[in-house]
């Protein structure tokens, strides 16, 4: 069919356009900084594998865990790549072409799969490197198995994302009755200057929060984790389980709900609005949710171990710091929250590892990175 490669071609051209529009200095930062970090990460992992080769070679649990990680990563890749491919297959300017919905789905699937080949091959290459580093027996089998698993998970992720007919986000907002549903009291929290920016960030039709399937699952999961942690704290007379659950749950809630796309809109960028105010204001609703979740668990924590009142206090402070760091990454990757989450988690993981190796002074490096990203984002917001 003559349209088969259309979506892939569109995405490729968009990528080339974005790269061409990027300042050389920014491109250099990404290539040198990102490439350097990647090379460093690979080097320390390979060095660690070589040092621990005897143990790692026969650690069956670790190898199965690596395969599970490969499968999860392939699934995530497939779902992440299918979404933009599907959007382009249903682009408004293609609406008039005589292409059926099934054909558009096939175009999106083939484009997502074609792009997903690179990360799938990377997984196989990493497995090869790990096998060579520890002299794993039957290495070829592990590498081929990893490649097959990765491609299978990628295909599953693409199929999962494309299983439903596509409805453009704007059409969904415009559908009659789209503002109906469970109305949660968002408006009173969204009236400070700039008004309604939280509803805008969350894409709430007419400011009404309608719980989606994913929202319900997240809420139930957090509720269950909170209940379990509360029971554990009270049973052991220890504040730690509730505080840890509050900290982790609060951070997950913040990461799931912080959306910074208004920062790249000309509506805010051409308005007399300081970056700091816009940044803080967009964080307000997600932060309220995150802090509320932590506060609900801090009560049982203090009740379980009244003497350890500093633990909830330091946990709350830690949550605020982690939320602030994530908000900086989310503002930088304003239109790609998944990339923000990946960058944030990688930065935390690398900092944690290096802190174990070199001590707490590494935290200064993380602070410097966060300040650098904040300044870059502010400059882009104010000056372009």
């Amino acid at each position, binding site marked *: 069919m003559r349209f088969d490669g259309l979506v892939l071609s569109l995405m490729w051209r968009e990528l080339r356009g974005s790269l*061409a*529009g*990027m*300042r*050389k200095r920014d491109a250099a930062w990404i290539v040198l900084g990102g490439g350097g970090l990647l090379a460093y990460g690979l080097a320390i992992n390979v060095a660690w594998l070589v040092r621990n080769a005897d143990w790692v070679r026969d650690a069956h649990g670790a190898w199965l865990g690596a395969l599970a990680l490969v499968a999860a990563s392939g699934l995530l890749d497939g779902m992440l790549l299918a979404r933009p491919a599907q959007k382009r297959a249903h682009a408004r300017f293609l609406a008039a072409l005589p292409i059926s919905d099934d054909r558009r789905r096939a175009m999106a699937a083939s484009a997502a799969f074609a792009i997903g080949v690179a990360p799938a091959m990377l997984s196989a290459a990493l497995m090869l490197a790990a096998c060579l580093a520890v002299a794993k027996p039957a290495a070829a089998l592990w590498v081929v198995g990893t490649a097959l698993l990765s491609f299978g998970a990628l295909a599953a992720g693409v199929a999962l994302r494309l299983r439903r007919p596509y409805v453009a*986000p*704007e*059409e969904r*907002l*415009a559908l009659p009755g*789209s*503002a109906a549903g469970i109305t949660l009291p968002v408006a009173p929290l969204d009236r400070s*200057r*700039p*008004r*309604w*920016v939280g*509803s*805008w960030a*969350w*894409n*709430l*039709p*007419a*400011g009404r929060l309608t719980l989606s399937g994913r929202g319900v699952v997240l809420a139930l999961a957090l509720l269950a984790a909170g209940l379990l942690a509360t029971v554990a704290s009270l049973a052991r007379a220890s504040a730690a389980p509730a505080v840890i659950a509050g900290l982790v749950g609060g951070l997950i809630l913040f990461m799931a709900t912080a959306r910074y796309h*208004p920062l790249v*809109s*000309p*509506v*805010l*960028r*051409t*308005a*007399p*609005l*300081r970056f700091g105010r816009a940044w803080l204001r967009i964080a307000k609703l997600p932060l309220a949710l995150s802090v509320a979740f932590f506060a609900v668990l801090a009560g049982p924590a203090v009740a379980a171990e009244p003497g350890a009142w500093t633990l909830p206090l330091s946990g709350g402070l830690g949550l605020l710091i982690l939320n602030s760091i994530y908000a900086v990454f989310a503002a930088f990757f304003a239109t790609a929250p998944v990339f923000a989450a990946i960058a944030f988690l990688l930065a935390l993981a690398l900092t944690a590892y290096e802190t174990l190796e070199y001590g707490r002074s590494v935290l200064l490096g993380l602070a410097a990175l966060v300040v650098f990203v904040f300044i870059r984002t502010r400059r882009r917001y*104010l*000056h*372009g």
Partner: protein
Amino acid sequence: MADAPILAMRGLAAGYGGRPVVGGIDLTLHRGEVLGLLGANGSGKSTLIRAITGQLPAMAGSVTVGGVAMAADPVAAKAKLGLAVDAPDVPAALTGRQYLELVASIRGCAPDAWPAGDMVALLQFRPWLDRPVASYSLGTRMKVSIAAALLGAPPLLIFDEALNGLDPVVAFAMKQLLGTLAAAGHAIILSTHVVETVPVVCTRALFLADGRIAGAWDSAELAAASRAPGDFERAVMAALSLHGARAA
């Protein structure tokens, strides 16, 4: 003493990826002036407007709005301009009323603090005011965008293709409004492909080609160039053909 310009550009160059799209732009705009910005697609009109509104950094030269340098104090400079954003940039999830409240809250004014009458009535979008912008047509989105740009009565008003999609009655009202706003002391930039509008509403016009000012008309020249119906259009078409031929 002549009044200070609302907008001043000196040797402005701006573009993307380190490559200038517009360059060598020298321009001043005073209160009461309506500047028509003309040019073919890709001539640099939108890039110039992005540079004026602080969405693109100046690669060379400077932009000053109301005496405030955009590079030095972008927030203060942006307080002196109102841009009617493109229709797709109006937040789709908000209602028209919420969007007006959003912009008014940023500008520190009431959501009906317009410089000339009730814009909701003038632009005829009251029935849409409490519906999500996602359900609006292109023209209705532009109406909300224009109304928001006027909130707080900023001295410099910028309309980039803002007459697109407006129905004839509102387009006519909009042309009258531009005259009223200019008379009230606002400086206005109107970027448009509707060439015949320019001599009717503008006091000056610029023709951009290949990112540079390739032609200019002051009010007398505009009047002279549009004595007979279609004269100005023919002059602009000739300029477009000339630059098109050169580019080819």
